């Protein structure tokens, strides 16, 4: 029996391994003049960044408000609220440190909290170390790492960050698309490519 199980697992492993095409950036590698890539979408301490958010998670849809505030250097607070004003969750990010201030009991499962915190950390993280830069026509892709995870930031010809991917060596895991101007975000869309979690956020006036 054990032999059969082992064989089954081995075949599965081989199939999975063979079916995965490693995530590669196609383009010409160029030398970067900078060590760090800054992201400026949430960089003004005087602004309350408010978005209308629609979140899909495990077949459920929730509408509400996404509130983001820069509190200091590499320091942000992020909360998602229901329209009634109840807090779904409230995270604080200082560098790579994450503080969980509140999570609504319905979501308060360790794995989910960890994932959500990481997703919103990616949104507000603003200083990525540059590993390599790849030119793709008029666009360029900055390859970086955050907490050991590979991050790909794509900029267009106007130096606007247009998307961010987190990917392992075998697959993309997270995709964020940004819409707006280089220092001003009108809306964004987030998608986990591993879990059925996604959201769109549109800036409130």
């Amino acid at each position, binding site marked *: 029996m054990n032999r059969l199980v082992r064989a089954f697992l081995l075949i599965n492993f081989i199939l999975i391994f063979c079916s995965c095409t490693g995530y590669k950036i196609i383009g010409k590698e160029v030398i970067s003049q900078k060590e760090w890539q800054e992201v400026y979408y949430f960089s003004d301490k005087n602004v309350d960044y408010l978005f209308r958010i629609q979140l899909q998670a495990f077949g459920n*849809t929730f509408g509400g408000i996404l509130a983001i*505030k820069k509190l200091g250097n590499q320091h942000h607070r992020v909360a998602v609220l229901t*329209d*009634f004003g*109840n*807090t779904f969750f409230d995270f604080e990010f200082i560098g790579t440190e994450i503080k969980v201030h509140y999570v*609504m009991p*319905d979501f308060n499962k360790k794995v989910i909290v960890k994932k959500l915190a990481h997703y919103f950390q990616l949104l507000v993280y603003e200083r990525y170390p540059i590993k390599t830069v790849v030119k793709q026509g008029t666009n360029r892709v900055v390859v970086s790492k955050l907490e050991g995870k590979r991050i790909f930031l794509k900029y267009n010809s106007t130096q606007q960050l247009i998307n961010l991917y987190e990917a392992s060596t075998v697959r993309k895991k997270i995709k964020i698309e940004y819409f707006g101007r280089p220092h001003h975000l009108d809306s964004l869309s987030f998608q986990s490519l591993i879990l059925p979690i996604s959201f769109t956020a549109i800036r409130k006036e």
Partner: protein
Amino acid sequence: MKYITLLYFSFLFFGVFAQSTPMTPNEIKLFKVTVNQKTEHITSIQTDFKQQKHLSFLANDITSSGKMFLTQDGKLKWAYIKPNKYSIIFTKNQIIINDNGEKSIVKGNQKMFQKLSHVIAGSVSGKLFDDNEFKISYFKSNTTYRVKLLPKDKVLMSYIKAVNLYFKKGNGTVQKVKLVEPSGDYTLIQFLNKKLNEPISPSIFTH
């Protein structure tokens, strides 16, 4: 009727938080009788509302406004109009959400919505004056009565730390509700242009 009483109480909330002193047992008794008398004959409530969400880390409160409808049989609708169109309808078995034209139905057995529905309807109608569910204390100032409710239920406590209902003296109806979260952040809802016992079209609760 219990929902109406609760809703009515919510409308009475008008907050002057400072300089309030505890009410005496006789004052509490009289206050309860007064509110009961005023809410006894209410069959429906419709009102405008203004909502302020206070988050400690934001420079400004998040504001919104809309209309609210409540009927004797416990149907409750909150319709936000500004800055976004969004409505949520609580009926006995389901919750209908309309997010700017996109409609969805939520199963009524979800803990979060059940608790929310209970507190909201309770705030408005008076059912929150239930000693079994809340530790209740009563305060007065020159212009206002305040009823402070602390949940006893552990599930509810994890969502809401306290509910404050503000009644303007001489008016007898709830004018403001303050829902305080475990973090200390709060939502303040002020009711305006209340209409009592006016017919509400059943279609209000269908979309």
